[in-house]
Structure formats: structure tokens, C-alpha cells
């Protein structure tokens, strides 16, 4: 069964249609890159999949492991195994990162009918993941994202992802604002988590990230539709030509591929 099936998805915000018929299938083990110019609907797609309130779905369906995803609350989607790495991770002043993550993990485990991890088990897991991702333990003692640098915030997202072990990870412009070293750390983290069971949707504006996270498929989003799909070489083509050559073809339905 496909992990994620998006079928003719239309969504609007404040009466303005942003997504205008998205079709996409992600199977377990696949990494899909979604590229596109600013305003093409990339972050809206991520928000809709995670269940952000601001968007209303006007048409279409999204199934996750066969279940109607749009019918679930955001925390239920998290329980099902959907993880969104935020473009702008939110600061929670005063809330300890470790406490937050343990609450998140145990909430998700509860949803899945698993026993909560006690403090010792949790610390063991955290230590293991920190080692894999080469992240400083000091990060755990700080308030969630509060006072973090841009790079630290993104790394924290990847770290949370590693601990929560989602089945579908959506990375919303995780590369934005990162220098090349930070980018490599984040990409290494993602690569370490690639597995035959797990699917990724990597949203990015630049091809650069895809040098490090090599996708199985690349889709180009323009004006709320996927206008071009291909292998990883499509990203290179975009890099060379820019997005301009796609704009004119944006509305052509025959280019919409699943």
C-alpha cells in the first residue's frame, strides 16, 4: 500500500486558492523532492498535510496508509506517523527541550497503544539519537528553540524526527537560511533516517539540498499544481534553467503527473 496518496487536492486560504489539484503518491522508502518558486504552494502543501488550521480544503482527498488523513486532528496525524519539520520552528520559552520531546514521544506512543518510556529508557534513546546525528547534548537542556540559532533550530527539528521515528517525514524548506556546514549536518541526519519503511517529502527552493539528500523523485510545483515530475536529474535541469521556463506551461493539464 502507498504510504501517502494525494488526489486532486485543492486548498485555499482566506478565499484565495493556493493548491489547485495536486496529485502525488509516496511509497515507503521513497524520497520525493518538491521544488518550485516562491508562492507556488510548497509550504501550503506541507501545512495541509500536517493539519494547519488556516487552510480550508475545497476538493480532493489525502490518504495516509489508507486512512483519510484530512479527517484527523494534527496530533492524531502525528500519532499515525506524520512528522513535519517546520520551516520556522516555533519557540516555546520556559519549556525544556527534553521534557517537551518526552511528552511528544509518550503522547505518540500512547496513540499507538505503546507503553510510555520512563526517564531512564528515554534518556538512553536520546543519547543514541544524539550520537547518530552528532548533536551536542547541551541542546536538550535548553528551552524548545528559544534562543537557538537558525541552524540549531533546524537541527533540533531533525533530532525530534529521529526520536519520534515517523513513517512519513515532511521537510519544509529545512535548508533555508542554513550555511553549507549546517546543511550537511541536517542532510546527514536525514540520510541516517532513511529506511525501506519510511517515506520523505523534501520541500526545497534550491537544488543544493538535493546534492546531499538524493531524491528518488523530483516534482516541480507551480501555481498550485505539479507541472513536472522526474528523477533526480530534473533538479539539476532546474538549477541550470531556473523556474522561468515552467511558468508558461503551468496550467497545462497534460503535464500533471502522479
Amino acid at each position: 500500500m502507498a504510504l501517502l496518496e494525494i488526489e486532486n487536492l485543492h486548498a485555499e486560504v482566506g478565499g484565495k486558492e493556493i493548491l489547485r489539484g495536486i496529485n502525488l503518491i509516496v511509497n515507503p522508502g521513497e524520497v520525493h523532492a518538491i521544488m518550485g518558486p516562491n508562492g507556488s504552494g510548497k509550504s501550503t502543501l506541507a501545512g495541509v498535510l500536517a493539519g494547519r488550521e488556516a487552510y480550508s480544503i475545497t476538493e480532493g482527498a489525502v490518504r495516509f496508509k489508507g486512512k483519510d488523513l484530512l479527517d484527523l486532528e494534527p496530533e492524531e496525524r502525528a500519532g499515525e506517523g506524520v512528522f513535519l519539520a517546520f520551516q520556522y520552528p516555533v519557540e516555546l520559552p520556559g519549556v525544556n527541550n527534553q521534557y517537551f520531546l518526552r511528552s511528544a514521544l509518550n503522547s505518540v506512543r500512547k496513540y499507538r497503544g505503546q507503553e510510555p518510556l520512563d526517564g531512564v529508557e528515554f534518556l538512553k534513546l536520546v543519547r543514541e539519537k544524539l550520537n547518530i546525528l552528532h548533536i551536542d547534548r547541551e541542546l536538550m537542556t535548553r528551552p524548545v528553540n528559544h534562543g537557538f540559532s537558525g541552524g540549531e533550530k533546524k537541527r533540533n527539528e531533525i533530532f525530534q524526527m529521529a526520536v519520534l521515528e515517523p513513517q512519513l517525514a515532511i521537510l519544509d524548506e529545512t535548508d533555508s537560511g542554513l550555511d553549507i556546514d549546517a546543511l550537511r549536518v541536517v542532510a546527514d541526519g536525514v540520510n541516517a533516517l532513511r529506511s525501506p519503511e519510511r517515506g520523505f517529502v523534501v520541500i526545497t527552493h534550491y537544488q543544493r539540498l538535493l546534492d546531499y539528500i538524493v531524491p528518488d523523485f523530483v516534482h516541480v510545483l507551480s501555481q498550485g499544481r505539479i507541472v513536472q515530475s522526474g528523477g533526480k536529474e530534473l533538479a539539476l535541469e532546474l538549477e541550470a534553467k531556473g523556474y522561468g521556463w515552467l511558468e508558461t506551461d503551468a496550467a497545462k493539464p497534460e503535464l500533471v503527473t502522479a
Partner: protein
Amino acid sequence: MTTAESTLEEIARQDYKYGFVTDIESETIPMGLSEDIVRLISSKKSEPEWLLEWRLKAYRHWLTLTEPQWPNVTYPKIDYQALYYYSAPKAKKVLNSLDEVDPELLATFEKLGISLAEQQRLTGVAVDAVFDSVSVTTTFKGKLAELGIVFCSFSEAVHEHPELVRQYLGSVVPYSDNYYATLNSAVFSDGSFCYIPKGVRCPMELSTYFRINAANTGQFERTLLIADEGGYVSYLEGCTAPMRDENQLHAAVVELVALKGSTIKYSTVQNWYPGDKDGKGGIYNFVTKRGKAMENAKITWTQVETGSAITWKYPSCILQGDNAVGEFYSVALTNHRQQADTGTKMIHIGKNTRSTIVSKGISAGHGQNTYRGLVRINAGADGARNYSQCDSMLLGDRCGAHTFPYIDVRNPTAQVEHEASTSKIGEDQIFYCKQRGISAEDAVNMIVNGFCKEVFRELPMEFAVEAQKLLGVSLEGSVG
């Protein structure tokens, strides 16, 4: 309405969870206030003549005062003649042990999770339980007595340690201090008394649970804590109250005397009935709390205020001696129609005196939360320092946060810092938590507790846990 807003709505709608009334026979005296009533209260407690005189002076002074109008709270006018000024559970005989305590009363404590027996046996916390107006039982006295520590009901202290009571009563909060304190001085019923001798460190947290129970009975506790030179005591005060329709007046006075080199930590968790979601019922809490710190002494007030319909309360420090330290850590939560006007006063008199104020106000529902604080540096207070931090958090868009910091500096060497912030729990914060699998309700709790962390850190361990739970309960709601 968005999820975040509706969550806050749900939270704001949640009901008071400690509403129950215990059916215990109470002995009350006629309604209203007069010299005769003051005399009657005094005689019921077989008080010495000097104390009666003190009460009468207070009563006569009270007649000349008018109720203060400056607090940022509104409530219907209180008819002081329509209140009962004394109520005591009828004890059949003098109690020698817990076994003799009215089982109903013990059951009430059980419901509150503060069974005396359990506390005594398991936690090593000595509890002087105030049930309505009379201390029913005092525990751990023997153990404390070995160290020369006196911890008993106020009435008992009047009889057994009259010299201490006479010396210190009114020495920090004089009978003429303010409308409510003066009223309290005239009609105070009972409370706690504690004396820590020179150089003695009290080995356990001293704790009093207050509970207002008899309908229409004003509660007028009087607490007096004295730490003699070099002494140390940590005192806990906590309370819940049954659900009621009548407004219940509570005007307590707490006096702390910290002599040279001593330390007093006074921690409060207050959860009195706040009224229903339309603001009906609920406790009116007009409290005067003040401590005097002599040379090198330290007083720390920590309070977590989640209850009462009206809160009017400014635990203060008079830093009289050189190098004295005053601290105030406060979390005040107002929900539904609750109103709180609370803060502190730090009066710097001695040289190199230092004070710290950390105030966290949380407003939800239609709650109105006011911080009012005074930092005064007197002319003689060379090198005095103060740091104040007042943070407000808003949940929803129908509540209010207000800050009135008064700073009065009369010495050029003083350093006074004031920081303030106002924040709102954002939809994006809640969404972030939900995306990680955490429910909106848990997210709000987590964020609020994080906001209050600096204050909780100051509470004794078991109290901190209780306070955290209390905030959770106060903010809980069914979230869809």
C-alpha cells in the same frame, strides 16, 4: 473559531474541582460587628485583658476607616454587619490525639489529599490544621519542642507564650495599618504561631492548611512567625475551599519577624473557590502579609495564587537592617471572572539591602490580573539594589493584564531594575505541539508551567509538584 481559540475557551470554561461542603456542627456567634462581639470573641478564647484592649483599639480605629477604592477590582459592596465573625467546630472535649478528631473533618482532609496522619507518618511535615477558625490539632509539637521551636495555634500561643505574642503582635503590621488588617486585628479568630530560637534551623517544613467551611463566616486568621537571631524556617501555607454561592470574606494578617541573620521562607499555594464561570460566589481575599528583616536577615515570599474571586494581597518586606534581603516570587492565575490585584512592597531602609521581585500573571477567560508593586529606597539605604521582573501571559482575548510598578528612590547610590513583558500563547505554538503529538490542553499546561518555572523553582519540592498540578487543574478543559 480556530482550534487554539476554542481550546482556550474550553480551558476557560472548566469548573472548580474542589467544591464540597463538610457537614460539621459549627458554633457561631450572632451576626454583625460591634464592641460586644469583639468582647465575646475575646472571652470565648479566654484572652488576657491586654489582648482584648488591643482588639478594641483596632475596632474603634476601624470605625474611622473607609474601605479602599484604589484596587483595580470591582465587587458588590460588602455589608460588614451581615457577616458572622466567629465560628468554631464544636469540640466535645479537649483533643489529645488525631483519633479524637471529628472523623468528618479528617475525611475532608483526606479529600484534599492532606490527611494529617499520612502527612505526619510519611512526609515529616508538621501540620497545624486550621479548620474554620480554630486550630483543631497540632502535630509534631513534641519533636519541635526539643529544639525549642514553638509551633502552635495563635490562641494557644497567647496562653502559653504571652510574652512573645505581646512583644511581636502588631510589630510589623500595626493594628491601624489598613482597613482589612485593622478589621482583622479586632476580630481575628485564630491562626498559626511560630517561634524559632536563636541559631536553630527548623528541621522540617512547617505547614498549615487553611480551609473556609462554614457558610457566611468571615475568616480572620492571624499568623505570627518569629525567627530569632540566626534561625531558619520554611513555612508552607496552602488551601482549597468548598463551592458556595455566598461571597466569603477573608481578611488575614501574616506578620514575619526575621531577626539578625535569620531566614524565613514563606510559601503559599492558594486555591479558594473562585466563583463560577459567571463570577457568582467565590472568596474575597483581602490579605495583609508583611515581614521585617533585620541585619543580614532574609525573607522570601513565594506564592501561587489560583483561587478567590477577588484577590487583594501584597506580601511585603521591610528591609530594616543592613544587608537584609527580600524576595518575592509570585504566580497569579485569574480565570472566568476572577480579579487579582497583587504584588509586593520592598522597603529598603538598611544599607546594602537587596530585593528581587519575580511576578508571573496568567489571565484566562474574563480574568483580570493586576500587578501592583512598590520599590522604595529610603535616603539612608546606601547601595540598595532591586531587580523586578513582571511577566504577563494572556490566554484568549477577553482577559486583561495590568501592571502598576511604583518606584520611589531617595538615595543616589541605589540600583533599581525593572523588566516587564506580556505574551500570549500563540496558535503557532499550540500547532507546533500538536504536530508533535501533544494535545492542545497539554500544550497549554506545558507552556504555562514553563512560564512559571522561575517561581516554582523557589517552592519546596512537594509544594512545587502540587502547584504545578493545581495550575493544570485550573486550566484543564475537555479539548476537542
